[in-house]
């Protein structure tokens, strides 16, 4: 911290100019410090007035331009705070994301239980098939094989849902960071409805895509190879894979 900046502070806080009072020497660094610690428009304006009246005057036109720009920045920050508060980040963090994660976990568990029950039943049919012969046995075995094949859906859907849960986790971390940035309850909004979220869209496709990329985009090496099932049209099918493997031979 600069000596000028030290002179501008009392008890760890940046001094705010009082109209008509005696202002300490204020620097641009003090203004930036206020911005960093999320000062409100009033506090920033006070500091900028002090900057204007500082005995260490520079070019008046430059100073006025700087004051205008930082005042606009301050107004922008206040507006952003209002917008973010309307998104009710605390609700997202404490209600929506945990609820969505729980629901997805429940889907995985329910499909797993259902798949196991299907498998139990099919294994029973296989025992029955052992007592049959000819076409009847062949038909029953063919049917049970198809059921086993179809049951692989549980693995695929489980992996897809895991990807979604990881994305939700990434969003939750970003909301945490947002709340930290704006300081504790600074963004608390109403907790009665999700209207604000709905009004804002609750995450567009492009947003959601961005979150997914952010959740997975910083992985390297073997980690970057773990992406789970691909979307239709993007993933290679077995024939593509066979062709690729043949290229090695």
């Amino acid at each position: 911290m600069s000596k000028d900046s030290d002179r501008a502070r009392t008890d760890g806080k940046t001094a705010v100019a009082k109209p008509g009072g005696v202002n300490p020497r204020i620097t641009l660094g003090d203004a930036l410090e206020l911005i960093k610690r999320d000062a409100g428009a009033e506090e920033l304006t006070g500091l900028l007035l002090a900057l204007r009246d500082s005995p260490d005057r520079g070019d008046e036109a430059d100073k006025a331009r700087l004051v205008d720009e930082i005042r606009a920045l301050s107004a922008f920050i206040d507006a952003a705070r209002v917008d973010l508060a309307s998104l009710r980040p605390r609700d997202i963090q404490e209600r929506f994301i945990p609820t969505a994660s729980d629901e997805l976990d429940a889907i995985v568990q329910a499909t797993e239980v259902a798949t196991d029950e299907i498998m139990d039943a099919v294994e029973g049919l296989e025992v029955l098939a052992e007592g049959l012969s000819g076409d009847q046995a062949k038909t029953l075995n063919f049917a049970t094989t198809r059921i086993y094949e179809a049951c692989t859906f549980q693995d695929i859907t489980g992996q897809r849902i895991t990807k979604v849960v990881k994305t939700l986790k990434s969003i939750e971390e970003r909301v945490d960071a947002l709340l930290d940035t704006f300081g504790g309850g600074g963004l608390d909004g109403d907790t009665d409805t999700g209207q604000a979220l709905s009004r804002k869209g609750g995450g567009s496709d492009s947003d959601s895509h961005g979150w997914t990329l952010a959740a997975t985009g910083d992985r390297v090496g073997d980690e970057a190879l773990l992406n789970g099932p691909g979307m239709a049209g993007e993933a290679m099918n077995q024939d593509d894979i066979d062709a690729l493997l043949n290229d090695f031979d």
Partner: protein
Amino acid sequence: MAVDKNMKILIVDDYKTMLRIIRNLLRQLGFTNIEEAMDGSAALQMLRANGGYGLVISDWNMEPMTGLQLLREVRADAKLKAMPFIMVTAESKSENVIAAKEAGVSNYIVKPFNAETLKAKMQSVIGEF
């Protein structure tokens, strides 16, 4: 030479249901000597401790040790390096296939798969049955 259908096969997957599906499909193909592991490290321990396996069929995405890591460990182990190894996974990007091939995979099956594909890939690795 005919494939010994009593050969010991190790299937590796962290989804119990998938282990059960592969086990049942293998049983329908006539293979009954099947053991299971739920991640690469458990599988590697079994391969080293028990021996006598004729084929490994492994998922890729598992913790703590992935199927790719297991494959590399197998290929780096003097006693296991010739082990037929089929990767069965939902990872279907070309970089995955290339990484697996470079690590020494014997064949690669993308999920979801059918019994016919499983049989064909097994035959390409261990011979006709």
